[in-house]
């Protein structure tokens, strides 16, 4: 069987594309939603005690992750990595397109006293949010996340099972994508830079719709 040169070139391009795509896929667990979804209204408090509503998500990009402040392992790992992601992203996009990093703390009674120290340890600009349980629930639904507060165990350890991904919210306060662990700085930053440029360059505010 003899293939034309064009066929061979095409095959080579497809093969190369598959290799490139799988290499990128292996390192970035990012999902872009087909249809951006506006977040639900919520009113929470930021870590300084000031009200923070869904409206305040408008005008800039945000990364929102779910957690609780007595989470010693996964949440700090995520926050530390997101700090590195944003640092890397600073080399790739305009400063006004850099996302805010928002930590949605879902155990308000326990989280409120620690929240400021907890989030600002990773970066002084990081924002911690918490508040009434129903408002937390609204915020969670808007970013397609869940949090299950478990009863403290016999030794009094508090535990929350929660979504590991961070939600990517565009400047119109819409959920447009999610990024998943391990949040490797360089590939995650590249993923976000591509996403931000794509939305930033689109004439239609509806993005890919």
């Amino acid at each position, binding site marked *: 069987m003899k293939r034309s040169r064009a066929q061979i070139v095409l095959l080579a391009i497809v093969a190369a594309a598959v290799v490139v795509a799988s290499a990128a896929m292996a390192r970035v667990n990012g999902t872009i939603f087909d249809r951006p979804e506006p977040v639900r209204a919520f009113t929470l408090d930021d870590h300084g005690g000031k009200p923070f509503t869904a409206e305040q998500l408008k005008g800039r990009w945000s990364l929102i992750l779910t957690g609780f*402040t*007595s*989470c*010693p*392992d*996964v949440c*700090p*790992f995520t926050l*530390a990595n997101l*700090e*590195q992601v944003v640092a890397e992203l600073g080399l790739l996009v305009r400063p006004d397109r850099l996302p805010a990093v928002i930590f949605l703390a879902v155990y308000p009674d326990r989280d409120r*006293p*620690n929240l400021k*120290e*907890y989030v600002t*340890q*990773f970066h002084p600009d990081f924002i911690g949010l918490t508040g009434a349980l129903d408002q937390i629930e609204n915020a969670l639904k808007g970013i397609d996340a*869940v949090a*299950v507060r478990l009863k403290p*165990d016999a*030794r009094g*350890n508090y*535990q929350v*099972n*929660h*979504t*590991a*991904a961070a939600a990517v919210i565009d400047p119109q306060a819409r959920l447009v994508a999610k990024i*998943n*662990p*391990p949040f*490797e*700085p*360089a590939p995650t930053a590249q993923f976000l830079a591509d996403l931000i440029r794509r939305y930033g360059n689109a004439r239609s505010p509806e993005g890919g719709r």
Partner: protein
Amino acid sequence: MTGRCLDLLRCSAIASMLAGVAFGSVPGPELDVSWAGASLDVESAWIPLAPVGLKVHVGYMTIVNRAATDKHVLGADSPDYERVELHRSTIKDGVTSMEAVEEVRVPPHGRVEFAPTGLHFMLLGPKRPQALGARVPIVLLLSSGEKVDVSAIVRRRDDPAQGAHSHHWHICATCHSLDGISAMARFPKLAGQRAAYIEKQVRDFRDGRRNNDGGQMEASASDIADADLARTAAYFASLPPPPPDGTLQTNGPEWRRGAALYQEGDEAAGIPPCNRCHDDATSGQPQGPYLSSQHASYLAKQLRDWRTGIRTNSGDMPKIAAKLSDQDIDALATFLASYPRVHANGTAAQ
């Protein structure tokens, strides 16, 4: 400055064994030299700096089992915390959860990593404020009754010695040059050197087993983490080896004496040939570092330091150097510095 990582030997040596188990005949823990019997080593133990006021901290480390039998870690204690528990984080269907773990098996000649988003030591109820760079004692409790003392260092999660931001070799390069071919003869050329040798020397400097440099390396090396050390050593090892020193007179009597010692040794004086262990080793893979194309005065100084006992971090070299005369040392240094590097894979430096 405080060292950032755990000293393997020290850790093992102080691994206290409870009497009555396999070591019933060992007369107490002062017999530290039998540390290999402790069989569990811990590497790179660290505790991330936690936000002030947080009552739950976490510890990470790699546990290495050098024994031929399973080891089971049942728990841990620390004088700095009210309680230590074994936990595992898992991410399933996009949801992260954490559960207590009853015991962790470390397979024979295997290792288990306690690392972010996986197994970890949960440190509850800190008894004192955390301090960056401080060491926290943790005692691992094994099913055999053994206890293993661990010293974990407190550092930031975004420590530059971690992960993608590792550029420690820039610090080394201040003296050893970014291409590993140092300009000044008092700093050895590292380019193309064996990674294992570089790692061992840095550890030895850091941990006080080598100090024949006036303390400079101890100060520089105290700051390097084990994982970063491995990458840094690999970096210098990967560089093209240095060219031989072309300014030295070759084929003169001194050079020929050096060449003869290197290739044949001096049987009468009890000096084995250098190339039994070094460079194009007759025994196959070189055991010792590459010496060829190194600075002549650096080599001469090292041989004299072995001879006088200022440098001691090798089993064989003090004995061999004791038999070398001053003329032998100068001859070897001249020959080796002018001798082109031939790697085990056959590539030669220009």
